[in-house]
């Protein structure tokens, strides 16, 4: 397992040993004359410089590749989050429709339930990938206000109902939140 993971390192270690062995084998011939030694020094120096350039180049290349891969993964994730957010937005919007329909019929308990489920979906919308996060804050505040009002409305009775104006106020809050949610992207 370890050998397999380090295959390339093992390979170059073997190659290095071979190279050293080769040089030791030809040592006598290289060292025989000053001229041969100079020749050898020149060519090995050149090879060392080339190796240096290649090594540096490879380092820069790999760091750039890493960055590109990271960016590609980010875009993919972004798309995924956007897709799941889009389905959540559709869900929230239909729940808010249900909520305002119930409010219109003075049926506040189911309205409250629909709104609370909508809020639960709303918090699951990925904020990090929204291009207009300030809208999301607006929606959350609007839903909060509406929920408080509907909760109060749950305490009304037939002899003490909400007025039309108060009902309209709640419906307006819900509708505003809905239109804001549809503009999220």
């Amino acid at each position: 397992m370890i050998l397999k993971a380090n295959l390339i390192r093992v390979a170059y270690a073997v190659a290095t040993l071979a190279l050293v062995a080769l040089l030791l084998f030809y040592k006598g011939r290289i060292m025989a004359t000053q001229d041969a030694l100079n020749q050898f020094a020149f060519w090995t120096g050149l090879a060392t410089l080339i190796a240096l350039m290649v090594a540096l180049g490879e380092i820069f290349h790999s760091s750039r590749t890493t960055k590109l891969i990271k960016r590609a993964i980010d875009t993919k994730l972004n798309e995924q989050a956007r897709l799941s957010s889009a389905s959540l937005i559709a869900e929230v919007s239909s729940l808010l429709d249900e909520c305002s329909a119930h409010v219109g019929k003075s049926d506040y308990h189911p309205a409250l339930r629909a709104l609370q489920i909508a809020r639960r979906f709303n918090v699951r919308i990925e904020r990090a990938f929204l291009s207009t996060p300030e809208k999301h804050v607006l929606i959350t505040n609007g839903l909060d206000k509406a929920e408080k009002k509907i909760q109060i409305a749950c305490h009304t009775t037939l002899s003490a109902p909400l007025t039309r104006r108060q009902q309209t106020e709640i419906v307006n809050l819900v509708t505003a939140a809905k239109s804001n949610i549809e503009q999220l992207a």
Partner: protein
Amino acid sequence: MLPPKLRDFIGKVLKKTIDGELKWSFDEFNMLISTHHPQFSMDVRYMFNENTEMGEYAIFYKEIGNQTEFRFVTDQSFDTDYELLRSLFNAAQASEIQFPF
């Protein structure tokens, strides 16, 4: 709590309304009934108070020839007043309707 004088008066108004002597107009959106009499005009407005979570009736009474508008408010914690005004509110709405049979 409404002053006893006013409560008596509203009782009389209620009776006149039921007898058809007083005509009211009803504004559904504002939950407001209003009537005009040669000697006075009166509005009664209903609202649900979101702070106290109780129904509330406000009476606006104006004498003809006098600019002052008197306001009286009562809510569900004063049972008899509330029920009296609720009866008036219902009677006033009915005064506007011409039932088919």
